[in-house]
C-alpha cells in the first residue's frame, strides 16, 4: 500500500449527501477480478450519459477537476454496499482523500485499506472547503496527515481527528495483515480455548 503523508492537490466539490457505493461504482462494473482499472467507471451514471458521452455539467468532467486528488462531499458518503470497488475506483481515478461530515462504516474502513484518507469535518467546514474547491485549479488544498491538518488555499489550518492506529498504518503504508500476524500466538491460544469450550461449534467440510 502506498503511504499517505502529505497531499497538495485539486479538490473537487461534490455537494451531495448519501452518495452510495452503487453511485460511486455501479454493480455492472464489479465483474472484474482485479483491483485496477475501475477509474474509468467512477461515478459512471453521473459522469456519462446513456450513450457513454461525458455529461459536461458533472464536476469530474471539468478542468481542473479531471485531475482532482481530493473529493469534498456531504453527509453519509459511501453508504450501501460493502464493495471495495468503490475506493478502488476512486484511487484508480486519482483520488487519495475524501473530506465529508461523516462516512458510512464499511466504506470508511475500506478507504484506509487502500491508502485513501477519509477526513471527517463538520458540515460548515466542509461547505467552506467546498467553496474553496469551486475556485478551481489555483485553489489547491493541502492535507498533512502527520500534523492532522487540512490547509485551505488562504493558509488557514483546520485540525482533524483520526484513529491513531489507522494513522500509523497509513503514514507507513503498512499492510495490516502483516500487523495482525504478529499476534499469531494469541490467535493460536484463542482457537485452542474455543475448541475446548465451544466444542459444539461445527467445522465446515463439504462433500
Amino acid at each position, binding site marked *: 500500500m502506498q503511504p499517505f503523508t502529505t497531499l497538495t492537490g485539486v479538490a473537487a466539490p461534490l455537494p451531495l449527501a448519501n452518495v452510495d457505493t452503487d453511485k460511486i461504482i455501479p454493480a455492472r462494473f*464489479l465483474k472484474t477480478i482485479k483491483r485496477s482499472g475501475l477509474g474509468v467507471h467512477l461515478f459512471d451514471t453521473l459522469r456519462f450519459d446513456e450513450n457513454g458521452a461525458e455529461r459536461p455539467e458533472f464536476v469530474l468532467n471539468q478542468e481542473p477537476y479531471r485531475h482532482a486528488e481530493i473529493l469534498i462531499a456531504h453527509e453519509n458518503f459511501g453508504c450501501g454496499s460493502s*464493495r471495495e470497488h468503490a475506493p478502488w475506483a476512486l484511487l484508480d481515478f486519482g483520488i487519495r482523500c475524501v473530506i465529508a461530515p461523516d462516512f458510512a462504516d464499511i466504506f470508511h474502513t475500506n478507504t484506509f485499506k487502500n491508502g485513501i484518507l477519509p477526513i471527517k469535518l463538520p458540515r460548515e467546514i466542509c461547505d467552506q472547503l467546498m467553496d474553496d474547491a469551486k475556485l478551481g485549479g489555483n485553489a489547491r488544498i493541502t492535507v498533512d496527515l502527520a500534523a492532522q491538518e487540512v490547509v485551505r488555499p488562504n493558509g488557514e489550518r483546520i485540525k482533524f481527528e483520526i484513529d491513531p492506529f489507522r494513522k500509523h498504518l497509513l503514514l507507513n503504508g503498512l499492510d495490516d495483515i502483516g500487523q*495482525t500476524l504478529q499476534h499469531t500466538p494469541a490467535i493460536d491460544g484463542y482457537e485452542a480455548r474455543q475448541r475446548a469450550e465451544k466444542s459444539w461449534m461445527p467445522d465446515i467440510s463439504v462433500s
Partner: protein
Amino acid sequence: MARTLFDKVWDAHVVERLPDGTCVLYIDRHLVHEVTSPQAFEGLRMAGRKLRRPDAHIAVVDHNVATSDRRLPIAEPESRLQVETLEANVAEFGMPYFPLLDERQGIVHIIGPEQGLSLPGMTIVCGDSHTSTHGAMGALAFGIGTSEVEHVMATQTLLQRPAKNFLVEVNGALPVGCTAKDIVLAIIGKIGTAGGTGYVIEYAGDTIRALDMAGRMTVCNMSIEGGARAGMIAPDHVTFDYVRGKPFAPKGEALDRAIAYWKTLPADAGAVYDKHLAIDATTLAPMVTWGTNPEAVIAITGTVPDPAAEADEGKRAQLARMCEYMALTPGQKIADLPIDVVFIGSCTNGRIEDIRAAAAIAKGRHVAPGVRALVVAGSGLVKAQAESEGLDKILLDAGFEWREPGCSMCLGMNPDKLTPGQRSASTSNRNFEGRQGPGGRTHLVSPAMAAAAAVTGRLVDVRELN
C-alpha cells in the same frame, strides 16, 4: 457490569485488545461469494499465504449467476470469468464450496442459516453488506470489504473497534397486511440511512419476539440500510427450534451444550444502550419506498412528500432529484402507480415463508397484462421446498416466472435487470438510482405487497385484496 447481547458476543471473541482500543476479533464463520473475493485470493497468492482455517469458510456463487437454465454456460464473459475464478480459487485454497448445480447453492445469506452454518453467539462476516441478516440468529454478523476478506482468510480475525449499542424496541400486535419488511422499512424511515452508523442495532420487543426466523432475518438484513453494520436479535426458543436438525448444526448432547451457552447471550437486566427507538407496531401500515434510498419510505396510504416543505437546502435538492428520477409529482398518491416489473426474492425476502406469502396472494389471480413478475427462490433448497408444497404451480398458473436461485434482480449484475424507465415493485433491499439496472425505478415492498402489485399492475394496498 450488565452487558448487552452485542457486548457478550464481542467480548467472547476478543483475542487481544491493543493499547489504543482496537481489538483483534476472532471470526468464527466467513461466507464467500464470487464478486468480492477474487482480489483477496490474489492477495494471498502474491504474499504466499494460505487460509488459516479452511473449515471456517463456505463459498458459493450467487451475484452473477443467471436464474434461467443452469446447465447452459454463463453467457456474459466477465460474469463467467468471475464464477470460474472462484471455482479455481476454492480448489487451490481448499475452501468448502457449494457448486452452481448443487441443490444447496443459493444466496450466501440464505444458505448460512439454512445449513446451520450461522449459529447464535458466532461472529460471521462476508464481503457483502447484507451479512447483517445472520444477526437474526443472535450472532454478530457484518459486511466487510475485500481487504478485510483477505485479512480473515489469512488470520481468521479482523482488527475492529467495538460499536455502540442501539436498542430498537417494537411492541404491539402487527396489523393485518403488515410483515417484518414493513417493520424494518418503518424503522429506516424513522432513523434515516445514517441513523445506525457506528452502532449495532438490537431489535427487541414483543413484536420482534413474535416473528419467525424468516421475519427476523428480513429485519436484520436491512440494518445496513439504516447505516448499522449489524443488527441482532437475542436467541430464544424460536431460534433453537430453527437450528435443530439443520445440516451443519450441532446435534444431540452437543446441541444441548450449545443451547445452554446460547441462553446466556440475551442482554442482562440493566444493560445500557447508547441510543433507543420505540416503535408501536399497531400504528404500522404496509410500507412502500417512493424515492431512491430506503429512508424515502411511506405507508401505501400515503403521498409523495413535497421537497419544498424541507427546510434544509441540500435535503430539498435531494428530494427534488428523487421525484425527478422516480417520475413522481410531490403530493401524488403512491397507491395506484402502474408498475412494469415485480421481483420477489433476494436475501431480504427469498425464503420459503416469503414465497408462501406471495403464492397466497397469487392463488386464483393472474399477473396483470403487460407486467413481468419474477419469483426467485433464495436457494435450491427453498426452491425444492416450494415445489414440494405446489407453490411453483400456483405462481406459474398465475403468470409469474419461477426461476433458479440467485441474487437476480436485486442488483443488476446478472441478466435479470430493469430497462431504463421501468418501474418495479421489489422485495429486495435497495432502491438506489440504477440499482436494478440503469434508469430503473424501484419501489421496495413486502412479498405480499409485491404479489398484489403483480396481479393488479399497480402499487396497491394488499389489505384491499385480502
